[in-house]
């Protein structure tokens, strides 16, 4: 029973697929298992991973957020402009602080519309995405800044450690991955071990029941969207740092891809279900798949086809399974004739 339950979980399925995929890719091209490749994968997964954790929290609460990319680029670009104008020459930490604060502010705007007027989250974040991006491009600026402050420029080389491989190429694991690890642990603890986190699950499971139980829905929602704003601000800043430039027209457009990866990792788009581990697995699956096509000798142009196919198959399999279960009973409990379970 326990084993069966484990296999019924989307997380397990994704983990197994990921594992199998790694074996296959490694078999076709051993380069896959080199440190350099894995450092690359980690680097690619960092920003998407942080976004995805934000998306996860929103999805669990029964909402959907498409504005986080706009928040990210807004925070990143504005921070860069601010500190460039201030001729700041210090370290990267101040960038993160300011970007997180901007993210917080924009997240609170989302929270205000969602919690105060009870508007559908998709519609609110559609509107704010448009507003944030429009405001950024119109008021703050729209040109690509390549001449970034030194602290930010140095960040792209902030490796945790480096390894020199046998061909003499030095590769490093970027420290940004620490952000992902820290945020993942934080999100895990909040979701699993705090009443706030359980309130997020409760809200996604049944809003009405959550209200009756005495959860403060508005406060929970304010937390969710503020937290996602902060995450987006940080992720945006990492994105800018890794790319050594601030492009105001970047990032927006990726939101649906991030949502797809999160759902692939087992989060339910209807709310109430999802885990940090699953989300990280979903992101890794997409990243490994798209980064390794070339290693497998498949032209890079196939990347999207493969990712699209993964999403469709990855969601169709559990859907078909539920469908088969439901077909036999249209509106009655499946256990109608079965004995009533374990009562003394």
């Amino acid at each position, binding site marked *: 029973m326990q084993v069966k339950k484990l296999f019924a979980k989307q997380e397990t399925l994704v983990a197994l697929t990921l594992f199998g995929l790694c074996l296959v890719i490694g078999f076709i091209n051993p380069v896959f298992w080199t440190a350099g490749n894995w450092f690359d994968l980690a680097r690619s997964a960092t920003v998407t991973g942080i976004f995805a954790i934000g998306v996860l929290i929103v999805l669990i609460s029964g909402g*959907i957020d*498409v504005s986080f990319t706009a928040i990210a680029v807004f925070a990143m670009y504005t921070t860069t402009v601010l500190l460039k104008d201030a001729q700041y020459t210090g370290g990267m930490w101040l960038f993160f602080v300011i970007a997180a604060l901007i993210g917080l502010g924009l997240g609170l705007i989302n929270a205000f*519309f969602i919690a105060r*007027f*009870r*508007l*559908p989250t*998709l*519609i*609110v974040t*559609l*509107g*704010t*995405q*448009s*507003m*944030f*991006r*429009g*405001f*950024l*491009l*119109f*008021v703050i*600026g*729209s040109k690509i800044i390549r001449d970034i402050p030194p602290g930010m420029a140095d960040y792209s080389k902030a490796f945790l450690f480096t390894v020199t491989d046998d061909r003499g190429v030095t590769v490093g694991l970027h420290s940004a991955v620490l952000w992902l690890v820290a945020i993942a642990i934080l999100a895990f603890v909040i979701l699993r071990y705090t009443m706030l986190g359980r309130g997020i699950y409760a809200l996604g499971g049944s809003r009405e029941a959550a209200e009756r139980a005495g959860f403060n829905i508005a406060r929970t929602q304010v937390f969710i969207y503020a937290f996602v704003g902060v995450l987006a601000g940080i992720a945006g800043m990492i994105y800018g740092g890794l790319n050594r430039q601030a492009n105001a027209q970047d990032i*927006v*457009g990726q939101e*649906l*891809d991030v*949502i*797809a990866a999160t*759902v692939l990792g087992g989060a339910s*788009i*209807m709310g109430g279900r999802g885990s940090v581990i699953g989300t990280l697995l979903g992101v890794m699956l997409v990243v490994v798949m798209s980064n390794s096509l070339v290693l497998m000798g498949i*032209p890079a*142009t*196939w*990347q*999207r*086809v*493969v*990712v*699209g*196919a993964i*999403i*469709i198959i990855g*969601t*169709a399999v559990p*859907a*078909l399974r*539920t*469908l088969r279960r439901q077909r036999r009973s249209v*509106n009655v409990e499946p256990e109608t004739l079965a004995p009533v379970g374990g009562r003394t």
Partner: protein
Amino acid sequence: MTSQETARQSAAPWVRLVVRDGNLLRLFIACVLIFVVMTLLRPEVFPTVENFRSMGSQFPEVGVLAVAIMIAMLTGGIDLSVVSIANLSGVLAALFIRTFIPAEASDVQVVIGLIGAVVIAFAVGMLCGLLNGLLVARVNLTPILATLGTMTLYTGITVVITRGNAVFAENRLTFIGNTYLFGVIPIPMLIFAVVVAVFSVILNRTAFGLKLYLIGTNEKAARFSGIDVPRTLIGAYVLSGLLAAVVAMIFLGRNNSAKWDFAPSYVLQAILVAVLAGVNPAGGSGRLLGIVLAILALQFVSTGLNMLLLAVSGGQFFKEFAWGALLLIIMVINYFSERRK
């Protein structure tokens, strides 16, 4: 019957609709208000033939996409793949034109070639819609997920076919972008008008259209009423795909080329228009008249702001801000008017 009611009864049907429906009324007022304000602020450029031509060529793309989104939304679903379908069918149509219409083709050859291109585009659009419909209706995938997946898939196929490059249509379709009926009405606007006319008949006067509304209102009851829900849903997504292919023709007409990453932001813009139009994202209600009013309001806002902010750098981006703001303002007003009831 009071005299006021008699007046309402005798008015044109669309007037009655606008008066009865609070959201439509607000949109209508917004449209008129923005138009008047812009006319007063920029009398020399806003109410001109030039400006009408330019506005009339701009809004139909998102307008037609919004109709596509509305069709899916009426059933309680959504179609995120419309732009990727438009790009795929645009690319294939352009490839067809390049391959089968020689440079020195006669007029007859050109016409036959173009018809072929349109047929290809429409067929591809409907085929993509069919896959969406099957995933939603037969596999029982949540529409948002199904079309998220196919969006990536269709975009991917386009990338594979074109190796990521733009495909040019040899100026064969550019007449769509630069011909004006009676010197005023751009062809894209005509296409939009035809789409609205055809779909208002489909939605209001056919059994299929009514079934879409009923399914969106209560899918279970629809099934228990003997409505073939899967088939109707598949029909909805096929139509949505077909409309995406229509948009592909407008794209080709205006840009003379198609590319995999063209206009990704149109998806969310089209959803924004549909929601602003009062289409219920949960399904069951929404009117084409709302789409027309919403897209006009947004176009007036964008054009007006462009004119006002011409001198300001990045002025063209202000419209994005204004669109989002308009959506939120209308939603908040709706919230308060709901509560008053």
